[in-house]
Every structure is written in structure tokens, then in C-alpha cells.
């Protein structure tokens, strides 16, 4: 009978799901020696930067023989709150959190405080609050401003007035907004050199970025300055540039000054090949190390500052050699 087959199929597959996922070492080792477990909650894993951060934290933790449980919130703050509370329920010893934004994480921190579990925010800070946490942060706006300032310097050297395009991220994403603000701040006062002719909202979508840049190039074929709010959009931008024959090395005639943010593998390759002028790099290793260290310190009862700043750095043709070991994208690239 068909019905029964369906029912059996259903139960079977649920069993399979359970079977496949072996109960992992969440901590309660049988012989007293309790292994420390840390819950790592990411907002999303949909860009390479977050994956790199995730891997770096994993490496740090395993170095110290700490077990890890993970959760990804798929950009939904409410789900993230549920996941953090889930960690608390299962009794983790510490939480590393990439919050969706500065404010929605406060109830999560509070929940951790109440359960007396130390919590560290990774890469994004919390807003002012009475809840206690430590955040390891890179200042998106400041680092972007420095990167764009470098690009403006290059433009100034060439001399003529430059027409610029900025590829914006999702307008609902605080990081994207921080980078946009950094860009605008760097341009301010340099209007005699840089004229922003197009602001392309990419919604973090490669197709929209590609179409937007292509359209901007159609409207203003003499564009020679492009900044993208994230390096992962570089393939889209180079594709649009190649289509009109404008993807040129630095120094070649018709070169478009390019800048980005993140410091991923694509950006590294472009730097090495001499296409990319500069990109703002968040020091993922520093952040991971500091986060794990902060957790350990907090467990030991040390008082920590609210913010630990990852200074980050701008990597450009001038400092490529000495800075590349600290660039996470470079290491991924070298690893293959």
C-alpha cells in the first residue's frame, strides 16, 4: 500500500538524518576531565571573509584543545538570538558571536551575562549598554577612509580630474553603510580631483554589481576610479571592465584606479598582477586570536576593555611584500 510506504519513507529518512550526525563532543567527557566548549555563532557565512574568520577561530580553538559548536543565523537576528540561547541551554563555556548589528546583539549578551558565560563579539561591536562583553572590531568606516585616501593620492599624482563609481553593499547592512560613509568621508574635500558620477546599490549581489558597473561605464565611458564595498564583487567589476576593454594594469594607458575592502584572495591576486591599487584588510588572524584570548581571560575573571581594536591595514602596491603575510586572502591563495 502506497500510504504505508510513504510513512516508512518518512520515518526512515528522519532516522537517517539523525544517524548521519553523530553526537559530537559537546563537552561532557565521561571521566571528569571536562573539555571546554565554545559556541561560535555567525550571522552569515556567505562571504569569504566570514569563512576565513570562522576557520581562523576554529584553528585557534583547536590549538588550545577547545571544542567548538557552531550556528549560522542566515542574516536573521531573531534566529540568532534563539541560537545563542540554544548555546546557553546546552551549557557552553564561552560564546563568540558575529552579531547582525550593534543593537540586536544586546539581548544575547544579556542572556549570556545572566548565565555567567563569557561572550566575545567578533568583528562587530555592540552599542552602548550595561551588558558586559568584549568586542574585537575593525573600524569599517576608518579603514575604508584610509583605503580611499590612498586611491585619491594616486589620482592626485596622475593629475586630471577623475570620475568615480562606488559599488555599495546592501543598504540594510551596517558594514556596507560604514564603508559607504568611509568612502564619502575620504572624497569630501577632494571634489576637485574626484567626481562621483554613480553610486551603484549592489544588494551584495554579483549580477547587480556587474550590471551596475557596466551601466555606469555606458553612461560615463571615461570613468577611471572604482571603489567596491567588498572584494568579493571584484570579479563582477573586472568582468564589466573587460567588456569595454578597460581592465588595464597600473601604469598602462586607461588604467582604472581600483580599490576594495576585505583583503580576499581575488584582491591579492589582482594586487600581485598589478591591477588593483589598494584594499583595506581586516586582520582576521589578529581578531581570531584576540577573541579566543579574551574568552580565556574572561573565564579567569580578568577585566577587559569593551573594545579591542583591530587596526587593520591598507595593502597597496607600495607595501605588498611586507604586508601580504598578514593578509588572509594571500594565505588562502598561497594554500591553493
Amino acid at each position, binding site marked *: 500500500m502506497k500510504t504505508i510506504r510513504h510513512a516508512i519513507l518518512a520515518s526512515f529518512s528522519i532516522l537517517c538524518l539523525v544517524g548521519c550526525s553523530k553526537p559530537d563532543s559537546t563537552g561532557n567527557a565521561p571521566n571528569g576531565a571536562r573539555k571546554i566548549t565554545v559556541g561560535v555563532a555567525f550571522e552569515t557565512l556567505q*562571504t569569504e571573509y566570514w569563512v576565513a574568520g570562522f576557520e581562523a577561530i576554529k584553528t585557534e580553538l583547536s590549538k588550545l584543545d577547545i571544542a567548538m559548536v557552531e550556528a549560522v543565523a542566515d542574516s536573521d537576528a531573531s534566529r540568532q538570538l534563539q541560537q545563542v540561547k540554544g548555546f546557553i541551554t546546552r551549557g557552553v563555556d564561552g560564546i563568540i558571536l558575529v552579531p547582525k548589528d550593534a543593537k540586536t546583539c544586546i539581548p544575547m549578551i544579556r542572556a549570556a551575562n545572566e548565565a555567567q558565560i563569557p561572550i566575545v563579539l567578533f568583528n562587530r561591536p555592540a552599542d552602548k549598554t550595561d551588558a558586559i562583553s568584549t568586542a574585537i572590531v575593525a573600524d569599517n568606516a576608518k579603514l575604508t577612509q584610509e583605503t580611499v585616501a590612498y586611491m585619491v593620492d594616486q589620482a592626485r599624482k596622475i593629475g586630471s580630474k577623475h570620475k568615480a563609481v562606488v559599488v555599495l553593499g546592501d543598504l540594510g547592512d551596517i558594514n556596507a553603510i560604514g564603508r559607504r560613509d568611509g568612502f564619502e568621508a575620504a572624497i569630501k574635500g577632494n571634489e576637485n580631483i574626484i567626481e562621483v558620477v554613480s553610486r551603484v546599490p549592489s544588494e551584495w549581489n554579483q549580477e547587480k554589481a556587474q*550590471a551596475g558597473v557596466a551601466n555606469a561605464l555606458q553612461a560615463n565611458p571615461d570613468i577611471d576610479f572604482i571603489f567596491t564595498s567588498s572584494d568579493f564583487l571584484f*570579479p563582477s567589476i573586472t568582468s564589466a571592465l573587460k567588456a569595454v576593454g578597460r581592465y588595464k594594469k597600473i601604469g598602462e594607458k586607461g588604467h582604472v584606479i581600483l580599490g576594495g575592502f576585505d583583503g580576499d584572495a581575488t584582491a591579492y591576486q589582482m594586487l600581485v598582477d598589478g591591477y588593483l591599487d589598494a584594499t583595506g584588510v581586516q586582520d582576521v588572524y589578529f581578531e581570531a586570536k584576540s577573541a579566543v584570548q579574551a574568552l580565556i581571560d574572561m573565564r579567569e575573571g580578568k577585566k577587559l576593555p569593551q573594545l579591542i581594536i583591530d587596526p587593520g591595514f591598507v595593502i597597496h602596491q607600495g607595501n605588498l611584500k611586507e604586508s601580504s603575510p598578514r593578509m588572509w586572502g594571500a594565505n588562502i591563495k598561497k594554500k591553493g
Partner: protein
Amino acid sequence: MKRLYQRLLEFAPLFMFMVVLAFFGAQSSRFLEPRNLVNILVQASSTGIVAVGMTFVLLTAGVDLSVGAIMFVAAAVAGKMALAGLSLPFSLLAMLVVGWLVSAFNALFIARLRVPAFIVTLATLFIGRGLGLWITETRAMNLPDSFLQFGSARFLSVPVPAWLFGMAVVLAHLVLTHTSFGRQIFAVGHDAEMARKAGIRTEMVMAKVYLISGTCAAVAALVTLGQLGAVSPKFGEQKEFAAIAAAVLGGTSLFGGRGNVLPGTLLGAVLIQTIENGLVMTNANPYLYPMITSVVIFVAVFFESLRNRVSRPFSA
């Protein structure tokens, strides 16, 4: 008077399109350049091809939410293969196979086991995205230049993506209007039970429609890869909504049995892309994009509905 009004409404969608063209044309001198019009066509081709497949599905009163996920899995597989050193044709074949596999899965559950299409394709959307993330290890992949070359290659000075889009539209139009399968789709969409009684093999028709949609999604993935040269974890996301919007904008009913690819879906897909293009060309405030797009969609659908209005008080 009434005749004139109806005649005007007949051309309302086209008229609307002209207004949009004229508006942006007045704002930016470069907007109406042939080069830019080709640009629009190329940029619309990926969504357009998916929308062509979606039109088949909508005509049977179904829906395929899994197209974006199919694109992602197909692109991920093709990317992996290309990075492993296999040549372009193998990757292309692999993409089609992925499209067929996923849509055959859809077809099995929808046509054979009679599970509502919305839930089945919602489930394959989740499964597909999960698979894609697994294959790509949630990383972006930069593909060999052969893909970009394919995407920017021209034939008779028209880029290949636009050719593919055009071929999909023409082929779909031929199938829908000039084959018995095409006409049977309309019958099934009007009333599946009645179609079965009339001797149509409704299961086959339904199954084929999803296979077509899956194939279109795979081709669209190829077109997108040709333009981007990279796969990111967001590849193809929200494509299902864009495709449905394009088809509905072109006059295809969500309740089945009514609609066309030429000019409907073609016009719908191109109209949406034209607005996006025009907004960039005129350096519009980035915050206004979704609002302007939604208003234009709304107005277009409103005109379309005036055209089809029947004097009955309520009709589905």
C-alpha cells in the same frame, strides 16, 4: 470612444515600455545608444531565460521556486569541474545535467505524487542551496577566463547571452503556439482534471514543464557565469521572484491557462532591467531603486488588468 480606449489598452504594456525608454533617454544622452540597448538585453538575459521557463510552469497553474537554487548548484558543479581542469563543454554538460536532475526530482513529486508545486519547489530550494553551499564550501570561486570569454563573445555583433535569450524566447514561443504539447499546456492549466478526461497525459505535460524550467535555469546559470566569471554563495538568490515578476508583468496568469512568452515574458524581463539600467545611468539615489521598480511593476500590471478586465463581478 470605447473602442479607442480598448485599442490604447491593448498596447499599454508596450506604451509603458516606451515611456520608460523616453524618460531615461531624455535624462541621459547615452541611454538610447544601441550599445546600451544591447547592454540591457544582455543584462536581462539571465532573468529572462529563467522567466521563459517559469512561464511554462505558470501556464499549468504551478510555480517553480527552485530555479535560483538550480542555478546555484549548476554553477557550483560547473565551477568545480572547470577548476579541476575540465574543458568548458564538460562544464556546460554538467550544468544541464544538474538542471535536469533537480527538475526531474521536482517533476516526480509534483506530477507523479501530486504534492503541491509550491511546497515541493520550496523544499528543493532549501535542498539545492544547501547542496550548493556544500559543494562550494561556502566560498566564492573565480572561474577560468573561458567562461568570461564565452559570455562576452559575439556573433553577428550581438553577444552570446542575448542570442541565447532570443533563442529561448523564439523556441518557447514556437513550442507554446505551434506544438501539440504547447497547446496541451494551456489545456492542463485551465483545468487539469478536464484535460485528463479529454485524453491528455497530464502527468507527462506537468513533468515536462518542470524539466523545461530546470533546463532554462541551467542555461541561465551559464549566461550568468559568462558575465560574472565567479560563483558566490548568493548566486541565483531571489531569482525565482524576479522570474515570476517578469512573467506576470508580461501578462501570464498565476492561475494557469493564460499567458505568452512573445512578447509578454520578453517585455516583462526587459522592462525590469531597463529601469535598473536607467537608474544607474541617471545616477539616481540608491535608496530609490526598489521603490521606483515596484511602482513601475505595479502600474504595468494595473494596465494589463484593465485590458483583460471582464465585466463579471469576480473572476479568479
